[in-house]
């Protein structure tokens, strides 16, 4: 009895099989591709933010080091090495900030 009623309801609700709606598929596909682009852009943005933040922190740290290592505290050997090291660090970080985002699609 229940099976009979289930079959009647199933028949009532049944719809003939239809061909895929290509317009709808295309609409979903466009939104998926747009979503993929947004996610990639967000990832690039976060990467750039992280690299630039690190670069900025590095520059601050380099200047802090320069300030701490005043010539009075340093021997003549260190005096030549420390500024060169700090300058290299600044240059390296500048490359990091300027070149990495470009590679990530800036």
């Amino acid at each position, binding site marked *: 009895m229940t099976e009979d009623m*289930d079959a009647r309801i*199933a028949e009532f*609700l049944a719809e003939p099989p239809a061909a*895929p709606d290509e317009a*709808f598929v295309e609409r979903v596909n466009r*939104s*998926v591709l747009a979503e993929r682009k947004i996610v990639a852009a967000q990832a690039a943005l976060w990467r750039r933010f992280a690299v630039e933040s690190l670069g900025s922190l590095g520059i601050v740290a380099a200047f802090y080091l320069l300030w701490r290592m005043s010539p009075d505290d340093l021997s003549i050997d260190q005096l030549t090495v420390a500024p060169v090291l700090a300058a290299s660090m600044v240059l390296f970080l500048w490359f990091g900030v300027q070149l990495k985002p470009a590679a990530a699609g800036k």
Partner: protein
Amino acid sequence: MDEDLALARAAASGDAAAFARLVRTHEAAIRRFLTRLAGHSADDLAQEAFLRAWRLAGTFKGSGSYKSWLMGIAWTQFLASRRSDKRRAEREGQWKPEAAPPSPDRRIDIQRALSVLGERERAAALLCFGEGCSHSEAAAIMDIPLGSLKSIVARARSALAAQLETAND
């Protein structure tokens, strides 16, 4: 089923073409389910459901069918949209359930019969009778215990049977 799993894995790794094939295979069932649940907004809901499926592609483990997994997302999407519609309409003081969409006669009959059911009864009936899901599949899709699902299906069966009897008289 195996093809769905392979395509789902490809989609999870970012293959949009594989996901498009999954959409092509399952869009009719998802849209039919949502049309009978939500009326006019079904296509937008279906699009949102598929987009959510794309975002969550990595979470499909293949323990059930891909269609059931999609149905679960569609059902969740429907509930979320109803909640937000209701909240918005309550703020504006004019909440009323959405009217059935204008459609060919037979669809009106189906919509009329389904309109006597609550949302959960309607969804359970559509899944178990319309889409041929087992009780446990439907319970998983609707995220409710199997016993509750069986009670809901029994209520839906009685209401639809009464509708069919009335239509035959």
